[in-house]
């Protein structure tokens, strides 16, 4: 009797709540940390990127129009989905990063806990970052943090899952939609986690994940005029040049720093805008 043959998975893009191949038809070979073949992963094109931005722009309005309570529940459900598929994520992180199983388990646990942390922020940010302003006049004046809009993320190259979560959860939690480029050489954990958004009640297009060649996609990401902010943490030595390109449309630019405190709200603050409303008071 022969052993059962595995059913291998095809890794595709996550765009607008669907799982398309690249419109270009291209794929590239991804190997595990030990050099063995892992998968042929979709190699996204500039056109895939543009389509993801269109999807993100439409989804962002739905996402922001949901209540903060609802956004929190959706993010929490994403954590629930990840928790129930922990073993699968551990396996992917192990293969991608070459970690010992115990370390991969810890990494996945931390990633899930971070999603939980952010799920609790959705309905706190307004109070923590906003407030009423005692202007000298007959006005009720208040400032609210509102999402910047569509955020382009170059996810960290080394930390395939935790790094990805750190990069996408913060902008999503405050009401942005995200177009993320997964780690070029270690894309599968991010794809698996992003697939779980489909069963977490996210409006399609809130999180779009592209796999492919970072060098090919980062410049179109940094120059796209309908992207409001970029997280360049995973762009390595390209980061400075991309930050220059991002200036073309005055994008908000975030880069994680080595000494960042995990409780810092710098990333959240980078991708919200303070909107201040003056309303007259009178009889």
């Amino acid at each position, binding site marked *: 009797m022969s052993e059962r043959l595995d059913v291998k998975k095809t890794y595709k893009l996550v765009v607008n709540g669907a799982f398309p191949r690249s419109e270009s038809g291209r794929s590239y070979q991804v190997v595990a940390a030990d050099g063995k073949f892992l998968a042929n992963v979709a190699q996204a094109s500039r056109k895939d990127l543009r389509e993801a931005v269109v999807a993100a722009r439409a989804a962002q309005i739905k996402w922001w129009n949901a209540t903060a309570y609802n956004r929190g529940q959706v993010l929490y459900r994403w954590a629930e989905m990840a928790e129930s598929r922990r073993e699968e994520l551990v396996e992917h992180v192990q293969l991608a990063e070459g970690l010992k199983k115990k370390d991969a388990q810890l990494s996945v646990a931390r990633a899930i806990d971070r999603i939980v942390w952010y799920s609790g922020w959705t309905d706190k940010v307004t109070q923590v970052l906003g407030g009423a302003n005692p202007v*000298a006049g007959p006005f009720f004046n208040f*400032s609210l943090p509102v999402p910047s809009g569509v955020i382009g993320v170059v996810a960290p190259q080394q930390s395939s899952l935790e790094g990805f979560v750190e990069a996408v959860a913060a902008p999503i939690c405050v009401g942005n939609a995200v177009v993320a480029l997964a780690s070029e050489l270690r894309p599968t954990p991010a794809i698996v986690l992003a697939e779980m958004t489909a069963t977490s009640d996210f409006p399609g297009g809130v999180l779009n994940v592209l796999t492919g060649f970072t060098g090919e996609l980062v410049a179109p990401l940094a120059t796209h005029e309908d992207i409001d902010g970029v997280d360049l943490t995973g762009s390595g030595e390209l980061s400075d040049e991309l930050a220059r390109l991002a200036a073309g449309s*005055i994008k908000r630019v975030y880069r994680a720093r080595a000494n960042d405190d995990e409780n810092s709200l710098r990333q959240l603050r980078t991708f919200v805008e303070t*909107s201040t409303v003056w309303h007259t008071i009178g009889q």
Partner: protein
Amino acid sequence: MTDHSLTSELGGLSYDPAPESASIARLQPSYGLFLDGEFTAPESHEQFASLNPATEETLATVALASSADVDTAVACARRAYTKVWSKTTGAERAKYLFRIARLIQERSRELAVVETLDNGKPIRESRDVDIPLAAAHFFYYAGWADKLEHAGFGASPRPIGVAGQIIPWNFPLLMAAWKLAPALAAGNTCVLKPAETTPLSALILAEIFQQAGLPDGVVNIVTGDGTTGAALVDHPGVDKIAFTGSTEVGRLIQERVAATPKRLTLELGGKGANIVFEDAPIDEVIEGIIDGIFFNQGHVCCAGSRLLVQESVADEVLRRLLRRVDQLRVGDPMDKNTDVGAINSAAQLERIRELTTWGEEEGATRYTSACELPDRGYWFAPTVFADVAQSHRIARDEIFGPVLSVLTFRTPEEAVAKANNSKYGLACGVWSEKGSRTLWVAQRLRAGVIWANTYNKFDPTSPFGGVRESGFGREGGRHGLEAYLDV
């Protein structure tokens, strides 16, 4: 209708001039740079003239700071930061700022006169808006200096270091206050670069710093042109750049600091939509539209330069608006009756003329006030364009002058879509008696500031700044501290 076809129904009324006295300004013939608490000798620098735009006469000459001067200024600021200011307690910093606020109040009439002479804005505005608000900003941020741990940025937020601050010509002293007050409260030292055409009130402010006993080098002021600003932006000794000005220049600055550790905040251009719903109180609406676009000759980044009127009331609003425009008193900025003063510079006047020519060429209907304009100086009569389409340049480009573009809408959705159809996102106005609709619209507008049933209101406690290509970062309020803290 053609140009100058407006008729005033109150045409018979006139006002005698009520001029403020220029001698109150007590200007010196020439100024040096303000470095390390002292003015350098004027003759040690190349000088350039600061003109009165209402007369084209030279008010004074000021020093053109070279890159070597900027080096010196940054070195002074660094030394003051390391040796003095970073060792000064928050409570002591607060008292310096309170002193400065009081000194501005004491010299407010002189400052108002200087501002109006140098900028061309009506004395009524510099007296009632610019100078009191500048004092209020110092007063507000003074109180923050020893309470930073309560500002919401962590238990012990630290200053950034040396801030390079580049300000525009439209509110010269007020913009200096917006930049300096939060920076100093947060514990930074500063190199301030005033606008080329309006350097004088900042130099009076330097005298105030001397009177306040502010430690040497905590604020250094380098007058000059674009090359001076560029030297400051590029200086490796600067930790933070804060810029207010055009989106074009802001983009260049963002590019130039992108590959450096410098922090950056930008307050850039705008094309504010002033949205009028059919239920709005029309008398207040007309005054609000006027304030929105003709305040400070329209030299306001948040000006309500696109009027969006609901179709059902568009004819009436336009008719009454044009009647009101014809009553605006345009002329001598030093006259206390003047509503609209001089355009700040020949270059700005040229830009306004170019864009309004585009308005006519692209098919909008132009109405221009029949007011008489003085023979000398830079003037532009208040102008309204009707029948404007969203694709017209006058609906897209920032004119930064007394020129209003009128568009119409039918539904709230359409109003929001048209208001947001801009690369800018600084400010919007919403006029309606229905609070729920106002808040619904406000939630959907992509803008940093939304005025409901008012326009062009500013307050030190209220964060100001843009989204999208209007820049990032806030000035004013608790949020304004973030720009000057290492958080």
